[in-house]
């Protein structure tokens, strides 16, 4: 970005001034030095024997884990069905809670920027900041183990995500369409219905299937802490080192996630 005029009158151009180049060069030098230093520190506290041994152990486990124990599938239909239900019901409940929160959080629809909007934003941050596994642990303590705890954990965890994306969509709507509906003498709720809702509907549908897709993955691990679903089988199998069963469970989860992703891709494609 610098033009120099040489003594013979020609103008040369370089992207940076000399000072800028020097700063960048020093920054790179420091970066490399820090990297080398860290590498050494990590190396000192690593038991390299275990690391060198890792491929052999992995090979060993892989050997024991294959082939999958296909007959175990009979015991997985129930848990995988639970898992899908946890994800689906959890998503639906979270959407029902997220929609009002989103409208309260969006600058252009909130009744009060001073008081209500911060509360809505707090709900969004609070529910998002805690992992669903931790929500599940808490809820199991409160409402006991089982599928219901899983559903509630997924629902709470998803509120923040859905509400955040939705309120951003609400803030991006075209205000003149809202103005036009207001100008007809429509009531506040009719303005919502005709001016706002049609504009955010595609975003809403996209968010719903996207979150459902994420929740299928999240609900597969909820069983690890006893909140129902296929994770329960996974942790039981891991505990008794039944590797062929673990393989089968992982395959089933993979299929479920792939199917979920395919469905959500189709739905989103159809809407947008």
């Amino acid at each position, binding site marked *: 970005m610098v033009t120099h005029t040489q003594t013979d009158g020609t103008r040369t151009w370089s992207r940076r001034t000399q000072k800028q180049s020097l700063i960048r060069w020093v920054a790179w030098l420091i970066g490399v030095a820090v990297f080398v230093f860290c590498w050494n520190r990590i190396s000192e506290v690593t038991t390299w024997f275990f690391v060198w041994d890792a491929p052999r152990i992995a090979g060993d486990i892989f050997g024991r884990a294959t082939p999958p124990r296909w007959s175990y599938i009979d015991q997985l239909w129930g848990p995988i069905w639970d898992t899908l239900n946890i994800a689906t019901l959890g998503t639906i409940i979270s959407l029902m809670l997220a929609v009002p929160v989103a409208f309260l959080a969006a600058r252009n629809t909130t009744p009060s920027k001073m008081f209500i909007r911060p509360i809505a934003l707090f709900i969004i941050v609070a529910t998002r900041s805690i992992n669903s596994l931790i929500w599940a642990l808490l809820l199991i303590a409160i409402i006991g183990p089982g599928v219901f705890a899983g559903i509630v954990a997924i629902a709470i965890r998803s509120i923040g995500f859905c509400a955040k994306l939705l309120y951003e969509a609400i803030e991006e709507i*075209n205000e*003149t*369409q809202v*103005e*036009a*509906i*207001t*100008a*007809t*003498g*429509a*009531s506040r*709720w*009719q303005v919502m*219905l*005709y*001016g706002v809702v*049609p*504009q955010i*509907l*595609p975003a809403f549908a996209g968010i719903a299937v996207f979150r459902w897709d994420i929740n299928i993955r999240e609900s597969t691990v909820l069983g690890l802490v006893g909140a129902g679903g296929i994770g329960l089988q996974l942790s039981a199998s891991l505990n008794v080192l039944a590797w062929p069963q673990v393989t089968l469970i992982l395959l089933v989860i993979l299929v479920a996630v792939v199917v979920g992703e395919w469905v959500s891709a189709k739905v989103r494609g159809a809407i947008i």
Partner: protein
Amino acid sequence: MLKLDKLVKTYNTGDQALKSVVLEIPQGQVLALIGPSGAGKSTLIRCINRLVEPTSGTVHLDGVELTRLGSGALRRDRRRMGMIFQEYALVERLTVMENVLSGRLGYVGFWRSFLRKFPQSDVDNAYRLLDRVGLLHMADKRADELSGGQRQRVGICRALIQDPALLLVDEPTASLDPKTSRQIMRLIVELCSERGLAAIINIHDVALAKMFVQRVVGLESGAIVFDGAPDDLTPDMLTHIYGEEDWEATIEKVTDAEEEAAQ
């Protein structure tokens, strides 16, 4: 019929958009509001239906002081003022029919509008209006499938189905090509005379305004600097409103040949 008295709008930023505007419009008069960008034309018409709250002054429509109404009464009186927008402002993801019927929202309850159960008379009226503007075959198309001129016609239908006494028209042709612009202006003016509506039309295009209206009001920096017949707009006057420029071409009569080309 419409009376603005000492209307002032000062925005929070301190910009004075309107400086004590006094204006009276009789029944059925179509008025063009001209002036440079930022002169306060949009603010003026938005202060009438209070999409923008005026800072002080009064607006009377048929004896009702709009500036004093509570929110419920304001909604009832907004039904009497149809509004047409520069960028059409149709709800793009709704059908043409839904957009037209949304002009009746002030008359139907929430659940009827939620279920799209508008009274049959409204539906008949919507079809009649769409037929009048030549879009009957588009009724079930989504609004975003239409061209600019078609969208503006739908916008006109939405305003007219309110059964208004007054049209507030904000730059109806600014996003349209010259031919469509003339057609839309002609349509608005025709519909106003058919129904005896008064109208305030904000418009950039002075030549276009002069072709269609009986009265021109020039706004400059929030104050009215011209109010008279289109023919009284001299180059000096335009210089006063807009600033120095060669205005001779603008005020020339539009020739018949051009007029026909626009048909």
